[in-house]
């Protein structure tokens, strides 16, 4: 029988939290107080989120229509739509994924499976954790100098995606390493014992077993990237683009930029548009998170069968 990786649902469910620990009956006061505090910590942010969502839905829902999604921007709020921004965001996410996934997963595999624990790898690990916390606008400045100017990508989709990919790399690497670590060591040893080399072990055993975790990490990172505005504005993403990108060298705009622009306009009609844009953005994020859960469940089922 395959030993379950740590952190999966099956490994945790050996005891239900309701009948454990058993000694809570002895002194119920602190127990209840702690429980109440924890519940409050959960409820408060949820309430805040619900208010925000409620307001956006209330304001933007009536504005949502096929026309809103398929129209180009306009000075008349009622005619304006998000098509170039939506397509720009989609292109951006696709390109970012293509760049960030192979690099990020590759780096994680190297660090987990190949690199020993030298001082250098220690330094690299600390740097990656630090990079994951660097504000996104710094990546924007880096992208402006490196991709837009030095590599002469211009203010294109390619430059935007490369910048976002840089922003995502530390997150992808951290998530992928976390997932690789959940594969028990005994699995690798069993593999070696059968005469497999490292590459075969990684490809046939370690990667498939950690795939659900890696994919979840990647999709969550992408869901964060789709809401990024600062680095895109820094590298010169536009606000008004009346055509759809036709190559990776096209100038582009993205949903959060369009929303930001509408929110800061004086006319109330644009704020309604912004609310509708927020709903679309949230729907995309929810879809991506849903996809992450679906993939995880699917691969886990595949593994256990």
């Amino acid at each position, binding site marked *: 029988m395959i030993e379950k990786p740590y952190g999966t649902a099956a490994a945790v469910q050996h005891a239900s939290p309701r009948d454990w620990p058993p000694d809570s009956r002895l002194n119920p006061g602190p127990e209840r107080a702690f429980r109440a505090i924890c519940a409050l910590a959960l409820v408060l942010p949820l309430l805040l989120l619900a208010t925000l969502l409620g307001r956006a839905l209330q304001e933007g829902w009536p504005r949502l229509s096929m026309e809103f999604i398929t129209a180009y*921007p*306009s*000075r008349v709020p009622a005619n304006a739509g998000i098509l170039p921004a939506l397509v720009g965001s989609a292109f951006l996410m696709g*390109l970012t994924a*293509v760049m960030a*996934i*192979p690099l990020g997963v590759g780096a994680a595999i190297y660090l987990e499976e190949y690199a020993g624990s030298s001082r250098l790898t220690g330094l690299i690990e600390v740097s990656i954790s630090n990079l994951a916390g660097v504000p996104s606008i710094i990546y924007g400045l880096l992208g402006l100098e490196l991709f837009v100017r030095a590599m002469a990508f211009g*203010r294109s989709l*390619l430059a935007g995606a490369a910048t976002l990919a840089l922003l995502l790399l530390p997150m992808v690497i951290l998530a992928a390493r976390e997932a690789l670590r959940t594969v028990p060591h005994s699995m690798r040893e069993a593999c070696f014992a059968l005469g497999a080399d490292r590459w075969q072990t990684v490809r046939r055993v370690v*990667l498939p077993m950690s795939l659900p975790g890696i994919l979840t990490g990647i999709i969550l990172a992408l869901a964060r990237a789709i809401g990024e505005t600062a680095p895109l*504005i820094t590298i*010169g*993403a*536009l*606000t*008004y*683009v*009346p*055509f759809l990108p*036709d*190559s*990776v*060298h*096209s*100038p582009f705009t993205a949903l959060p930029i369009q929303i930001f*622009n509408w*929110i*800061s*306009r*004086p*006319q*109330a009609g644009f*704020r309604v548009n912004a609310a509708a844009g927020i709903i679309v953005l949230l729907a995309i994020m929810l879809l991506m998170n849903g996809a992450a859960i679906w993939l995880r469940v699917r691969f886990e089922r595949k593994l256990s069968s």
Partner: protein
Amino acid sequence: MTRTTLMLTVLTMAVCGCRKEQQQARTVRIDGSSTVFPIMEAIAEEFQKSQPSYSVIVGVSGTGGGFKKFAASETDISGASRPIRPVETEACAAGGVEYVELPLSYDGLAVVVNPANDWANHISVEELKRLWQPEAQNKIMRWSQIREGWPDKEVHLYGPGVDSGTYDYFTAAIVGTEHSSRGDFTSSEDDNVLVQGIAGDPLALGFFGLAYFEENRSKLKLLPVDDGNESNGAGPVLPTFQTVRDGTYQPLSRPVFMYVSTSSLSRPEVEAFVRYALAHSAHLVEEVGYISLPERAYSLAQSRVDKRITGSLFGGKGSQIGVKIEDLLEREEQDK
């Protein structure tokens, strides 16, 4: 999985390889001030309907950020909510960029208070200066210190972010030095945040673009401003489309501009865009909440384009207070 990665890589390379140049060649690239953006968007939208073969793209990097890209020849046209400054002129010269300066519209700055404020009915430039100058910090904190007879209550100040052209112009007009004011006020890059702040604070006083007042009339109280100069309308003047255009609302009305690179002007799409902009700005700027220049100013501006008159009407020195753009253009026309 390897197969998928391989396919994706091939796909990207295929997309990368083809069709790079065609679009760039027929595109007018615009960037610059967020104040000018709605005007550019309006012109671009209409221009494209009349000239479907050309396209126009507009970014928002702020007046200063826009000039940086303009000086590096990354854009053809730069929107500006104040005239170009010496450092920016030098940057353009260093980048080999010559430009024609074209006024697009007027914008008024509104000084507003909360509707519950029943004591302030007008304010003078002198009082505004006493309130906003750097020396006022931590000293002028109460309404009674601004004018005798006003209540002994705290005053809460609201203004645009210090990186905005609006802040620059207000400080130049009121304090006398561009970019210099007290620092203890609530600032936001988003004027709607200022509107909300002032609408919810009975002791507030703030300033922002007139368009933001027009859209929120019911929540705010507009103050007439007295510049102490009898020659352009005596006493406090309320900012309206009329008083901003005829120059009686002083000093808080300003022209906004677009700067066009002369080398870009030789491209037909840029030439056509500029011509279209000057011919149609009069009604388009009003549609998006700004105040149009007199018709004559637009035709004088077009003749600047035709003659390729480069440099700034303001000597490249940044904001000047209380000028009427049509007078400057007229004087230039007569000098020729």
